[in-house]
């Protein structure tokens, strides 16, 4: 009996017979000679008995788990669209996106120039050729003014069109000239001058064309690639959206599954 009295933990564990043999013997010995601790033990026992005598809580309902809706072995669509697979696909798409963005950022020359330089070279060659052919066309029927409207030779034949084209100062003529330039970007820029000249030398348009080429090339590049949207960046955006969709799908199906 070293300590004056038994502590609450000893008494509590004694009630539950959770003391080791030595501890238990010590407690029993103390209780023999200590009325205070006997009283404590008695009160504690009554408390425990009162708690144990509480009426059981009545069950509000059954908590049975609903039967799973015949989970497919793995060949149906739902079987394939399991969260791990979706997560893996989403992760792959995300990784691809990151890789493309990284390549785009680290080596812009390859992404920006490689796809464009080749078509442009071809474009320039074709442009020059077309320009020369049209100049030849224009120079042949010298008496025919309609030929001045080279960009739309079939659509607007006849003297009337030629007259309009011959008057580039009038709004209609300017518009037509513009449309001609738009309809065939690589086409001959000097349509109005040719029309005015009525008899241009083959060298004239060819000489004028080169200065306009840089601008045209830039425009063409803008139009074919959409400016900012290089193929690589477009692919990155598409992959990013795909990754987000796949991951969201895996999350949703992962949440749905528990309800069975």
């Amino acid at each position, binding site marked *: 009996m070293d300590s004056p009295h038994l502590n*609450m933990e000893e008494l509590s564990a004694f009630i539950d017979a959770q003391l080791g043999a030595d501890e238990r013997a010590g407690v029993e010995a103390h209780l023999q000679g200590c009325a205070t601790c006997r009283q404590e033990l*008695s009160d504690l026992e009554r408390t425990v008995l009162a708690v*144990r005598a509480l009426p059981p809580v009545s069950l509000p309902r059954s908590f049975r788990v609903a039967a799973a809706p015949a989970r497919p072995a793995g060949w149906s669509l739902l079987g394939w669209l399991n969260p791990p697979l979706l997560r893996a696909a989403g992760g792959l798409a995300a990784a691809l996106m990151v890789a493309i963005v990284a390549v785009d950022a680290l080596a812009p020359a390859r992404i920006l120039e490689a796809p464009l330089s080749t078509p442009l070279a071809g474009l320039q060659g074709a442009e020059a050729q077309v320009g020369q052919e049209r100049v030849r066309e224009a120079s042949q029927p010298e008496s025919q003014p309609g030929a001045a409207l080279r960009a739309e030779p079939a659509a607007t034949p006849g003297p009337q069109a030629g007259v309009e084209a011959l008057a580039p100062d009038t709004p209609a003529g300017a518009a037509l000239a513009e449309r001609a330039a738009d309809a065939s970007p690589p086409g001959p820029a000097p349509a109005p001058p040719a029309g005015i000249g009525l008899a241009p030398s083959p060298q004239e348009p060819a000489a004028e064309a080169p200065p306009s080429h840089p601008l045209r090339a830039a425009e063409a590049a803008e139009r074919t690639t959409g400016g900012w949207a290089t193929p690589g960046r477009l692919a990155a955006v598409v992959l990013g959206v795909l990754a987000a969709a796949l991951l969201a799908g895996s999350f949703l199906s992962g949440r749905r599954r528990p309800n069975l």
Partner: protein
Amino acid sequence: MEDRWIAAAQQGDVSAFNQLVEQHQSAAYSVAYRTLRNADDAADATQEAFLSAFRSIRSFRGGSFRAWLLRIVVNACYDVHRYARRRPATSMEAMLEERDDASSHPTQTRGWADPAAPDPEAAALSRETREAIEAAIALLPEDQRVAVALVDIQGLSYEEAAQAMASPVGTVRSRLARARARLRDELRARFDEPSMSGGNLP
């Protein structure tokens, strides 16, 4: 029998798992109710716990299935409480009020359980005593409340309770002792007995 149900449930047999549900849902709901002090929350936590148990039953590696299951129930209760803590604690105030009301009415019955009673039926509690104990349990700190629910109400061993609470046995033992001491103090105060009986030990 339970082992066979567990094995079948681990193979995905829902009806086998539901046999386990039938067997343990009273204990599960009781622990949840004592922990959460609210029937709706307790039902939600119990259902969530059984679903969670079915999902993870493959991770059960023998031992006390009841303790394994109640561990999931206790966790589900803690989850509910984490959400509930953001709500105003009206229930606690109501409980304190109720307690004051109760103590303003002098008790007619000295309804303590008689430790000398031969069987639990004889230890039936008066309504006042029952309500007093319920209120006292409800006022315990959560950890102590869980310990009381597991050991005193559900009859788990200290080892099982330790497993269910993911705590060492010593922690269960001390939580239980502190909880019982507080409950005893509550009952002493309520029944105005500095010492509850004349010291007649069995």
